[in-house]
């Protein structure tokens, strides 16, 4: 019916097609699992249900809110509308300061309390993560 060459070529095309589909499937499957959403304190207040998934929270560190003891750092993230208490154990980046922008990664405990596993660094004192800028813009 068909020559050997045609069969071979068809086989190759199928093989490439299936490996492409498989690759795409793999990538998007793990993308779904490993994406970290960014929320502002207000968005967390308005969440209908709390998931036990890693998220990022961004806003400003409230003035006079940093409390330090031997192992923990506690502070409040605010978007000037709502606040969120953050509890963190570990090391903080250079530009973590009161009155400056911050992004904390971790898990929501309840609507007012966040347990952070990581505080993200920024390189520039004037730099604000676009998300923070936007969520501040929304609330103002």
């Amino acid at each position: 019916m068909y020559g050997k060459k045609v069969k071979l070529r068809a086989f190759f095309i199928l093989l490439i097609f299936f490996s492409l589909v498989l690759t795409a499937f793999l990538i998007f499957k793990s993308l779904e699992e490993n994406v970290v959403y960014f929320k502002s304190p207000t968005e967390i207040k308005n969440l209908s249900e709390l998931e036990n998934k890693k998220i990022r929270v961004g806003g400003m560190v409230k003035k006079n809110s940093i409390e330090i003891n031997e192992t923990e750092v506690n502070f409040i993230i605010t978007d000037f509308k709502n606040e969120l208490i953050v509890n963190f154990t570990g090391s903080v980046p250079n530009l973590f300061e009161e009155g400056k922008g911050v992004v904390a990664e971790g898990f929501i405990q309840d609507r007012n309390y966040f347990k952070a596993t990581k505080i993200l660094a920024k390189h520039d004192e004037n730099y604000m993560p676009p998300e923070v800028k936007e969520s501040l813009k929304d609330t103002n």
Partner: protein
Amino acid sequence: MSSQIGIYSLYIALIISVFLIFQFTFLNKGTTKNLDSRIFSLISVQFLMVIISFFSLIYAFIISDFSNETVYNNSHTTKPLFYKISGTWGNHEGSLLLWLLVLIIFLFIFFIHSKKLSNKYRLLTVLFQEIIILGFLLFILFTSNPFSNLFPIPKEGNGLNPILQDPALAIHPPVLYLGYVGTSIIFSSSLAALITGLINKVWASHIKKWVVISWIFLSIGIMLGSIWAYYELGWGGFWFWDPVENVSLMPWFCLTALLHTIIVLEKRNTFHSWAIILSVTTFSLSMSGTFLVRSGILNSIHTFANDPSRGIFILCFLFFLIFSAIFIFFIYQKNISKNLYKPYLVSKETSILINNLFMMFFLSVVLVGTIYPIFLEVINDSKISVGPPFYQKLITPFLIPFLFFMAVGPNIKWIKDRISKINIQQLIFFIIFILLSCLFLKKNGALYLFVLPLIGSGFFLLFLTIKDFFLKSSHLSQKLAHFGFSLFMLSVLFNGILAKEYSSNMKVGDERIFMNKIIKFENLKVVQGHNYQSLIGEFKIIDQKNVLNFKPQIRVYDQPKTITSEADILTTIYSDNFLVFNVLKNDGYYNVRYQNKPFMIWIWLSVALMSFGGILSFIKKNG
């Protein structure tokens, strides 16, 4: 004054560029002999003009000429001379001028070193390169002019972000750009070769030098950035899978694939179309790297200043280049010689094809991870980030077969080989190393699903490449590069698995006990630096055998007012001990972080070894 010289020489370069492109389109039918020397002189003048422009910008930075806006925004009189100079390319405008300079340098070198090849091919390459140069000239002159004037002239500049005042980061952009821009020559010349029907062995061995040199610079450039991130950002890692880092990794994957494909083209005269597709893709990725970093679209911790209109210009230009490349590819595809040879499953060609497949897979993983957040934000406005687990999960499992083929592949013969030669000896090797790594991991108590065979295949590659060094064959550069890669994989793995970390908030005089060690915060001193004040902490870490002294710093820069912390790293060949401390608030507590990172130095050394393999292949006569 220097600003005027700079801007006018850029305009002259622009005129030359337009003139050259014009000449190609309309006067190409004339006598080519004559044309050659005329083009040479034009390129030389253009080259000179861009050099003058670049040096006048450096000069403006050195004398702190604040009538220049770029200097005003990025420099300060108290900055050390070295960082005044490196500040030239530490900002958007200056770094684009550097891009342009490298574009022209490479064109110039290409023109001198390609005299043996056909004239039409050379001229077409110059044409494509001039189109790219023209695009960048327009971009610089109309959206990001490094020589715009300020009036009244400010007394003092804004200063360079202190975090960029660092020797590794001073040379990181030029080296990285040499790699990025090197791919432009590959792009232009592969299109020119396609049109003239020159894609063959001769072209491959000619362009291979360019591929290798770009690869070397790109590898070293990425490594420098990574070293900087390791000691400067204070979190103790060397790769964060941050979008800006990924953007430099993507052309590297593509270039590595191209490097291997070009060898097949050179030796076996096949894979023509694939080599061209890779050349175009590599350059597109380099360009989009610049676009993504400079436009501020990427949500990255590295994001520096940005302006959307600039992004749109580069994006349009990029699309123009990609579409014209695809157009040329479809029109001139018939020029590719149809090489009728029978492919065999077990051959060196196949093994290189496998390398390419893996490279494309890694590339698509990184590409999706980097682009997806932008995509999702446009579609439904949700803000996400894709973290390290995504990349680790997708890349780690595939590294196992990748390393295996990397070890086996180079010993397979061209055209056709027998499978039996591979499996007996090498499979035993493979199993032995898997078992060895099993034992090793049991002892250290870290059992992960993929890590085990990964370490196994890492060792497999390591020992097989060592074994290959004793074999008589001339591919020393390949062996070195593969050996370097196996070292790299193993040190990254052990570094990840065996790393230890401890962090705590401490006051001066405090002591903490962790993991059978004692950490003491003994003293705090204030020292005046050149343009900063530094707080030097004195720490001691005591374990059963020895005492380690650390002196990390917190620097307070005046201009701009910024705090940075400088980690103190004690490096040995076994591991790095890393200690960094941070000020939290003025109540006496400091945030202290201690890390033990095994085999850290080997990560840098192995990348250097890989690059050295590249250098060997470059200087070799018939490589």
